[in-house]
């Protein structure tokens, strides 16, 4: 996913890296002299470019999200969930007898900064794994760093697919997992044959709508009445809403993000388009976004996700309770937050299976790992580094939560779908 770009952001892109590079340099130098902590144990595995930050009692991991800047809106939940998981793992005795220590870096919503910080985590801190990134842009920025330094990244966001790397595990859904089952469901239960596709204008919505269109036309034999993209941060949707009214589609399929999202739903409601007269399915609104949109503006619309906070199972009840105990009773948990929570647990399972923190061994041990304690239920790592997961359809409620109305079977991840490109 991504976010609205603004003029100040454009300026930030050009002015920030210079300052941040300097700061990073200064910090790096001072940290470098104090040295990698403790004495490495005798069996400490070697890593390309130096020793891993690992002692007999401690293992160091990195956390790389935007705590500041426009993306902090979205990434805060992921930061919190990863910290919760790591805290729980430590309380349970850690991994292979070692406690996990976190070094948190701030990507500051700026892609070059993400790359710089990834480099710092891998080359200076020698972290055993990194939990981080949110937008595809930030992931693409750090990918070459992780591949060059042979690092390990757990990436939480549902995204457009078309990527697979030895050094990355994708704990969110790739596009086909999120899209196909949802369209099938709405086609069947709502007898929907005509669709209007809407998106913010960047890679994730465009790729996702491309997949959706192929599926609608070739598999469901339905019709796409319109496909529209609006610039990120667009705030006036009056004309678009009139076009929807004119086209009268069975389903509006919406992938609008950021501040635009709020404007879109508020203006829909104000223009008299509600669940009473229009079916709408979105893949870009989680409980997090609902906070900003306001439940009353979304009531009765559908969202397709693998996780909703309201999921009724024991794992999830425990997870939600622990999350609220740590971050306050009013905190909400969206799809990505749950996916971020899986990262540390999947890593722990892989390390324990490999009996080593060595990245090559952890990667080799990962495929086939199952997690039965996941809040979303059961997940399994596929050899293509994505997760097997279910798709759920949530019905938006006025209180900002979703009611689960449909649950698919386990779906195999397919980041390079044939016939959909």
């Amino acid at each position: 996913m991504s976010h609205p770009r603004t003029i100040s952001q454009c300026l930030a892109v050009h002015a920030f890296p210079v300052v941040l590079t300097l700061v990073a340099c200064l910090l790096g130098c001072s940290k470098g002299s104090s040295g990698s902590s403790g004495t490495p144990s005798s069996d400490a595995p070697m890593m390309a470019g130096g020793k891993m930050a690992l002692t007999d009692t401690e293992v160091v991991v990195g956390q790389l999200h935007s705590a500041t800047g426009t993306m902090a809106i979205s990434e805060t939940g992921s930061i919190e969930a990863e910290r919760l998981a790591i805290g729980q793992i430590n309380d349970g005795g850690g991994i292979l007898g070692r406690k996990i220590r976190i070094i948190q870096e701030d990507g500051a919503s700026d892609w070059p900064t993400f790359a710089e910080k990834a480099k710092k985590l891998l080359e200076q801190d020698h972290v055993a794994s990194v939990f981080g990134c949110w937008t595809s842009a930030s992931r693409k920025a750090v990918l070459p760093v992780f591949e060059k330094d042979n690092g390990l990244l757990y990436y939480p966001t549902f995204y457009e697919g078309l990527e697979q790397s030895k050094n990355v595990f994708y704990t969110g859904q790739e596009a086909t997992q999120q899209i196909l089952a949802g369209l099938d469901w709405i086609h069947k239960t709502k007898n929907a044959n005509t669709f209007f596709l809407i998106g913010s204008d960047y890679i994730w919505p465009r790729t996702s709508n491309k997949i959706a269109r192929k599926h609608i036309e070739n598999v469901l034999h339905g019709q796409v009445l319109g496909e529209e993209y609006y610039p990120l941060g667009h705030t006036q949707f009056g004309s678009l809403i009139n076009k929807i009214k004119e086209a009268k589609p069975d389903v509006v399929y919406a992938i609008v993000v950021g501040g635009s999202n709020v404007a879109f739903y508020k203006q829909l409601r104000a223009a008299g388009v509600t669940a009473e007269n229009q079916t709408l399915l979105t893949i870009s609104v989680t409980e997090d976004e609902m906070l900003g949109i306001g439940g009353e503006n979304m009531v009765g619309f559908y969202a397709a996700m693998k996780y909703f906070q309201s999921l009724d199972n024991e794992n999830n009840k425990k997870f939600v309770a622990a999350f609220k105990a740590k971050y306050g009773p009013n905190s909400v948990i969206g799809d990505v937050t749950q996916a971020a929570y899986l990262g540390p647990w999947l890593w722990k399972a892989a390390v324990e299976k490999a009996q080593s923190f060595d990245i090559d061994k952890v990667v080799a041990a990962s495929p086939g790992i199952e997690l039965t304690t996941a809040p979303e239920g059961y997940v399994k790592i596929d050899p293509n580094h994505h997760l097997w997961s279910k798709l759920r359809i949530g019905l938006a409620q006025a209180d900002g939560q979703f009611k689960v109305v449909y649950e698919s079977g386990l779906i195999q991840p397919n980041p390079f779908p044939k016939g959909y490109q």
Partner: protein
Amino acid sequence: MMAIWVMQAFTGLSNFSVLLLMALGLAIIFGQMGVINMAHGEFLTIGAYTTYGLSQVSDRWAPWLSKSYFLLAVVVAFALAGLVGLAVEYFMVRHLYRRPLDTLLATWGLSLIMQQAFRSAFGAREVSATLPAWLMGSVKPTATIDIPINGLVVMGLTTVLTALVFVGLFRTRLGIDVRATMQNRSMASAAGINTGRIDRFTFAFGCGLAGIAGAAFTTIGSTGPTSGSLYIVDTFLVVVFGGAQSLLGTIGSAFTIAQTQAATEFFMTGSMAKVVTLSAVILVLMVRPQGLFALKMRR
């Protein structure tokens, strides 16, 4: 079909009033005073958070306010944003009046500081004010026509404020002082006008208007630390295109841009519509660098 055209016409008008409302404050600060205020969007955000804050207050402690707090929010937003504007003028902007480019950098820095301040105070996530039901529905003159009420509210607010600004600037003593100061500072000063005070007042007033716009935009847009910055580009566009020093120009330009945008959006996709609109603006500015309306004055 007829219904769609009616609603589309309203959309154009509604976009016009949104653009005008957000540009009004900047038309005074940038247009009249010549201060490039990159933090203008953040003053909108102050207004938005004011609305959110008051909605929280009314939700928790004063349910009797829940229907009318929005009107109160408009007033409080004006006052708060104006006060912050006053402080900004006093501590920062007035030291930079002769250095417009430094003002650009300084106010941009200020906008970053303010965004982070919002983030620290209200959290990074977007929030949502519970808007009274009477604000969110639509009017249905016929079965097929929906006229959004929030659009009507923004339109009404814009009309009233624009009228007030005009009366204020052209019909009051204070307005004459303001215009005199902006047009010829030393002469105004020689005539006994306290130009420093006029500057401070004008800047604060422009910021206050931005606060009102921010409060009004909670009905149609998001409330988050960076919400205001969504509007800043369009705001500058409107003021520059209209001819920076002319208020009438700002109105004409908001109207032209909104109508072009609404019409093109209807016939092509959103991103293409933006391309067409911006290209048209560039073309016009190439022919008329001074903008649509230029103030005639002796140099």
